[in-house]
């Protein structure tokens, strides 16, 4: 509402300026025409043409062209030249019958009357309704459509003031406001850390700036170069891209390869891909660089919205559905890159912005060749090889760094069994389960030798009683020495149903000679790992691990290294309590020689979760598992820093691995686009003339005419579209992205509606900053990291958020930036920070998503039931969850995570009792509070220290002595976990100053 007023005033000023300008420039001869185009036409188009135009002709009257206007309507001629009193038009206006409800004011009436008096001389014919902005709509003179220029700094600015600050301060002075003092170092860093990475700063990071070891600017740079930056900003982008991983609509089918586009966005941000290229590839990557898998993946942008795959027989319905898809493309592209709601012109010219219906169809023509679906992307073996070398070198360096500490620690607790198996057997000693009651019984007499239990390959095997607990996700682990390499089909360890019908097993040489595989009933969950042929036999033990993830992914490790490639089976098999058992030596029952293993089994373990690569590696080196965190704690500060850097590099490299292996991606599939026609009222039944691909003419600075034929190829059309949108001459392109970045840092854009720079969106609060930063962005080769840096280093950003009553009274919404606006964390920031505080955040970058929903097919349709699965693979950052449209995460949902069906440039920030219930009581939050306290108790034995640690891990500060006393008393009485639950629910944890 605020904005409407501003808009109106502004456009009147513009209008007045235009009129004055035209009058002064043109000679007397043109004066009469000019008075029509400059005064009368805008008035007619603003007040009359919405009903009396060539299409609608209410009362038979069309005032848009000279001939029609003179002809009049159902009541007779409207205008009698030079005689207002005889003109119906004037009669209706004077009596205020027209325009209905909004009569003209006296000045406007005078304009019309004198025009008729002067002979009703017409100017541009028909009237160009889009020429000028007025108080109902934007014209071609609308501010955001004008070419970019670098604005002049305010005269008051001192030379060493940052331009952002100069403009903000000038505006504040104009409003009699003053900026707030600088924020404290700690709260500024917490703010910036969330702003850049979506995660809190570490205590060390705060300390390093406080002590002067590192400057704020240096730390900002460091954070911008961390992989968490790309993860955080990709989430912002995916909101705008309406990114989802299922179709939506009736079937809501999964898109198992949609995540590659998500990774592409993360990598693009992390690589600081120039924004120009970033946009071009998303619009037309597949036609611009058809041999580049990454460019193909980028077009996932176009098709990551909802899609109705259920096609009715009805032809008309099918045509309408296709038009809906094209509207989705044009709407998303227009809003994302240009802040234009072009989709509003599908059935008629845009009601508020200078976009014709014909231009809408020009835009659809550009995307008419684009279709939803999966497509192949080729593998890149050279790059894979190089990448693997780089990965290995980082791993080696990490091992070197960790080795001394690891040895030290493992010496200390050598009796540990490592990462908590649910059952473990050491066959060198006995067949007893060292954890529970799953003691193995030999089914034939067996021999125990120094190495373990001997399996003869003809008859011997062992079996446990039925499982006491159901096993779903799992890890099977065995140390085994093979008697010979040519045996086929025996298993080291197998989890089978009691009747032997279903099983998952570590099998040797069954389908492929000398190779390990994951055996399963009827091979339903079996694929080749394509691992190396086994070379060890005799007395040499080999360590084999197979993990089974909830999404069906099966991964094999040999001697602690990844064995071949993981693959995704159709499903994860459940082994129910009371109905399944563990067997050794036999693939599955009943006994048969081709299912028996010849060799010696030393030890075996089974876990009810998926071990990470580190855990497997640790287990393989036969050391008790020691968490990386424990090791890092023992390193020197320099070593810790180096470790963090190496780990980040490694995570990033690992993230790229999945993308280089080839496979499928859900992206644009280009086909022959055919010829696009304008559709009257948007209806396929009203096909009008053929329309070639083209842009929006009102956008100044470049031509919207693509000079292509209506039957041009998909490639030609989209290439032209990419050129027109992603151009430094397209003023909207840079303005819109600058505003998005500003919006996320300050909680409010310079333009408050990031997807709409048209009339309904409104004005920029600080147009000079928008243009100045846009010019900078172009000058810095479209580097978004530089843009962030400039914003984050401004005094405006570094202001305190402290409340100021006087300023609040003048500007409650803080649009003039007299302080930094405090905010609540976003949904993902909350979940990720909780995981982080609890010490559970798995920082693995990229790769297939984890599923916090249980997908199931029910009568042909796909459903997703929200679950709370445990384990490291589910403790990744929220951006890595599978974003099924029908399967949302209740915690994220409650905190305003948007429906991934429509582009969401800004998020609501609500406060509801459902949020409180979720934070207090949900299984995830309760579990995290428990894990959080367990982790703290492991590190500190004294309750006071535990309380301090809990405060540091949530608020990134120690408690005051009073706080500590109360918290300690509370934890004493109600448990440390209860304290953790309170801290995770607190406003200090959930809000930023």
């Amino acid at each position, binding site marked *: 509402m605020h904005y409407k007023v501003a808009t109106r005033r502004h456009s009147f000023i513009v209008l007045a300026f235009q009129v004055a300008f035209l009058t002064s420039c043109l000679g007397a001869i043109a004066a009469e025409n000019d008075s029509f185009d400059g005064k009368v036409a805008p008035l007619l188009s603003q007040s009359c043409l919405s009903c009396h135009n060539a299409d609608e002709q209410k009362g038979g009257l069309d005032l848009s062209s000279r001939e029609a206007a003179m002809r009049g309507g159902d009541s007779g001629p409207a205008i009698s030249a030079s005689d207002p009193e005889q003109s119906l038009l004037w009669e209706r206006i004077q009596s205020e019958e027209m325009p209905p409800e909004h009569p003209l004011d006296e000045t406007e009436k005078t304009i019309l009357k004198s025009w008729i008096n002067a002979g009703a001389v017409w100017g541009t014919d028909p009237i160009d309704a889009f020429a000028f902005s007025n108080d109902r709509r934007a014209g071609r003179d609308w501010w955001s459509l004008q070419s970019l220029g670098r604005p002049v700094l305010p005269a008051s600015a001192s030379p060493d003031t940052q331009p952002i600050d100069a403009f903000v301060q000038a505006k504040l002075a104009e409003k009699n406001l003053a900026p707030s003092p600088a924020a404290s170092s700690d709260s500024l860093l917490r703010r910036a850390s969330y702003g850049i990475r979506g995660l809190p700063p570490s205590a060390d990071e705060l300390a390093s700036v406080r002590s002067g070891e590192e400057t704020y600017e240096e730390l900002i740079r460091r954070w911008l170069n961390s992989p968490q930056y790309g993860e955080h900003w990709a989430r912002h982008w995916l909101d705008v891209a309406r990114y989802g991983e299922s179709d*939506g*609509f*009736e*079937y*809501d089918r999964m898109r198992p390869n949609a995540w590659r586009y998500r990774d592409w966005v993360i990598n693009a941000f992390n690589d600081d891909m120039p924004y120009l290229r970033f946009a071009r590839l998303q619009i037309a990557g597949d036609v611009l660089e058809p041999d580049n898998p990454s460019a193909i993946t980028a077009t996932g942008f176009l098709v990551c919205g*909802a899609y*109705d795959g259920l096609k*009715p*027989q*009805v032809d008309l*319905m099918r045509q309408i559905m296709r038009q*809906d898809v094209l509207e*989705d493309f044009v*709407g998303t592209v227009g*809003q994302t890159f240009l802040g234009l*709601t072009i989709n*509003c012109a599908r059935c008629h010219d845009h009601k508020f912005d200078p976009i014709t219906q014909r231009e809408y169809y020009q835009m659809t023509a550009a995307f008419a060749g684009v279709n939803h679906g999966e497509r192949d992307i080729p593998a890149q073996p050279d790059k894979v090889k190089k990448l693997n070398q780089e990965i290995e070198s980082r791993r080696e360096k990490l091992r070197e760094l960790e080795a001394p500490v690891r040895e030290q620690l493992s010496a200390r607790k050598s009796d540990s069994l490592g990462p908590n198996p649910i059952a473990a057997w050491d066959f060198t000693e006995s067949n007893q389960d060292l954890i529970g009651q799953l003691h193995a019984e030999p089914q034939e007499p067996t021999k125990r030798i120094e190495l373990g239990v001997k399996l003869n390959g003809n008859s011997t095997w062992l079996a446990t009683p039925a499982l006491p607990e159901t096993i779903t996700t799992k890890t099977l682990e065995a140390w085994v020495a093979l008697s010979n390499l040519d045996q086929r089909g025996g298993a080291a360890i197998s989890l089978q149903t009691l009747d032997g019908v279903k099983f998952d097993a570590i099998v040797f040489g069954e389908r492929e000679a000398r190779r390990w595989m994951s055996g399963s009933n009827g091979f339903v969950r079996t694929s080749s790992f394509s691992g190396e042929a086994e070379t060890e036999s005799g007395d040499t033990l080999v360590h084999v691990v197979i993990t089974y993830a909830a999404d069906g992914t099966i991964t094999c490790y040999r001697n602690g290294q990844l064995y071949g490639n993981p693959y995704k089976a159709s499903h994860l098999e459940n082994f129910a309590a009371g109905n399944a058992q563990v067997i050794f030596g036999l693939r599955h029952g009943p006994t048969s020689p081709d299912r028996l293993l010849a060799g010696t089994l030393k030890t075996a373990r089974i876990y009810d979760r998926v071990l990470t690569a580190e855990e497997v590696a640790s287990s393989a080196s036969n050391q008790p598992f020691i968490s990386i965190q424990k090791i890092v704690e023992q390193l020197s500060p320099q070593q810790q820093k180096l470790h963090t850097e190496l780990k980040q590099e490694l995570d990033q490299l690992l993230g790229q691995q999945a993308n280089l292996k080839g496979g499928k991606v859900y992206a644009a599939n280009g086909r022959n686009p055919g010829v696009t026609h304008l559709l009257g009222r948007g209806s396929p039944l009203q096909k009008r003339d053929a329309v070639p691909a083209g842009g929006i003419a009102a956008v100044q600075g470049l031509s919207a005419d693509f000079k292509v034929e209506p039957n041009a190829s998909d490639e030609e059309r989209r290439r032209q579209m990419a050129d027109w949108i992603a151009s430094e001459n397209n003023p909207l392109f840079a303005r819109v992205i600058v505003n998005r970045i500003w919006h996320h840092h300050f909680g409010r854009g310079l333009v408050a*509606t990031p997807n709409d720079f*048209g009339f*309904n969106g409104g004005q920029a609060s600080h147009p000079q900053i928008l243009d100045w930063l846009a010019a900078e962005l172009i000058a810095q080769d479209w580097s978004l990291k530089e843009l962030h840096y400039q914003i984050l280093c401004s005094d405006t950003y570094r202001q305190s958020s*402290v*409340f100021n*009553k006087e300023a*609040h009274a003048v500007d*409650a919404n803080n649009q003039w930036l007299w302080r930094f606006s*405090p905010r*609540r964390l976003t949904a993902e920031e909350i979940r990720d920070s909780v995981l982080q505080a609890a010490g559970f955040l798995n920082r693995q970058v990229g790769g297939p998503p984890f599923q916090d929903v249980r997908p199931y097919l029910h*009568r*042909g349709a796909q*459903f997703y039931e929200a679950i709370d699965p445990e384990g490291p693979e589910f403790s990744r950052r929220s951006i890595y969850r599978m974003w099924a*449209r029908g399967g*949302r995460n209740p915690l994220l949902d*409650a*905190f305003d995570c948007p*429906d991934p*069906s*429509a582009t969401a440039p800004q998020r*609501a920030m*609500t*406060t509801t*009792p*459902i949020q*409180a*219930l979720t934070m*207090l*009581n*949900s*299984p995830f939050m*309760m*579990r995290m509070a428990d894990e959080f306290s367990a982790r703290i108790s492991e590190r500190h034995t004294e309750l006071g220290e535990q309380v301090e640690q809990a405060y540091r891990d949530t608020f990134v500060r120690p408690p005051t002595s009073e*706080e500590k006393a109360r918290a300690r008393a509370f934890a004493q*009485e*109600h*448990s440390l976990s209860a304290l953790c639950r*309170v*801290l995770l629910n*607190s*406003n*200090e944890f959930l809000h930023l*100053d």
Partner: protein
Amino acid sequence: MSRQQSQNKVPQQAELDRREWFEWARAGLGGAALASLLIKDGIAQPSKSNAVPSQASDPPPHQPPKAKRVIHLCLCGGFSHIDTFDYKPELVKRHGSSLGGDQRPDVFFGKVGLLRKNDWEFKQRGESGLWVSELFPHLAEVADELTVIRSMVANSSSHTPATFQENSGFRANGFPVMGAWMSYGLGCETDDLPAYVVLPDARGFPAGGTTNWTNGFLPAQHQGVVFRANGTPIDNLTPSRPIQAKSDKASLEFLRDLNRQHLAARGESDLLASRIKSYQLAAKMQQAVPRVADFSQESESTLTDYGLEREETRDFGRNCLLARRLLENDVRFVQVFSGGAFGSPRINWDGHEDMIRNHNREAVRIDQPVAALIRDLRHRGMLDDTLVLFTSEFGRTPFTQSASDQVGKGRDHNQTGFSVWMAGAGLKPGIAFGATDEVGWKAAENPVSWYDFHATVLHLLGIDHTRLTYYHNGIQRRLTDVHGQVVKPILA
């Protein structure tokens, strides 16, 4: 800490009552923020003290409301109008002949068989003489309460887009549904319970899952909250693992103190103050939800009336009774689903293969409970200001889905003409409005679109459908898009 508390006069009780909270807030917050907070929290509302106010920029009522609350019985799959509420004697005569005429029906599965007469006998019912078939014998007994629209037209013949349109006005994913718009536009008479509650069919969710009760681009609190018939009614109402009540209470007190101290150090903040409040509201909800879901105070005869003692009516009867209790406790909009996902075997009204089997099975589940609900609402005086909606996304074809020379057993989707009914506040009861052609294929008289239907529902609630808007990506969005006319002839 205690020093700071006493400075701010923080009450020490676990539960702040309204007055105390008000006083504390006045002491702790500045005037402007206080006013906005109070309005947001409904304290300044003239109606009920704990009401949640409208969030609309142009808040209703725009005209005097007739209805205060809505219950929407949403039948998935498309029930057959010509077998229920739209009697077509001509169809009986022409049974076994082809549709004729020059328009070839363009149906979903493309198979146009011969015309099939209604499978259930029609009778005129009650004083009004409204036609209702034998498929709904119980419902027929309350025919005098119904306002049938027999000329509905939808824009899609595909279930899910059509269902989205039925509920949100749009065929696409991601637009707010009726219940969400009501919550946004009217708020709620209570802050103990959500404004919009969803009761899915016990056999499963409708296709599209939670998208069917989405808030779309409206703020998250307007999303439908699912109540389960069994177990804990809503998620996270109680801790996921047992906690001693004493500990839980102490935790909330400790949290409140932490938060107040945090707020006191920051002067004034709506954001922080309203989150403190949200934990108090959560505590109220923890009390209210189990209370409303507890049927132990209902009489034996009520339970019998709703069919809770019979296997086939128990599920839907339970949901109807729960719906009434929710409405009694000031929930704004309750949506009860009859039917789940599509596919085979059917668990909804999608009678492609065998109408008799399908509709008999579905109707028996809901007939008695719906009739009991109407009677119960009338008996309690609630029908005067409650609106009952009974709809499905489209109807079914008068010809069968079979070879062109056969009378098959099933009927295909028909979006070109079908029936729905409303009952209660502000309506002319016992009438049928509009008409389909003589065989019941297309709306022929006074066609009513979903936009019109929604405009009428909003009108009855005191809302001008053109004025209930929300800005989203360039458009002031409405439930009725850019269409919709109130169906005036059905209004009392």
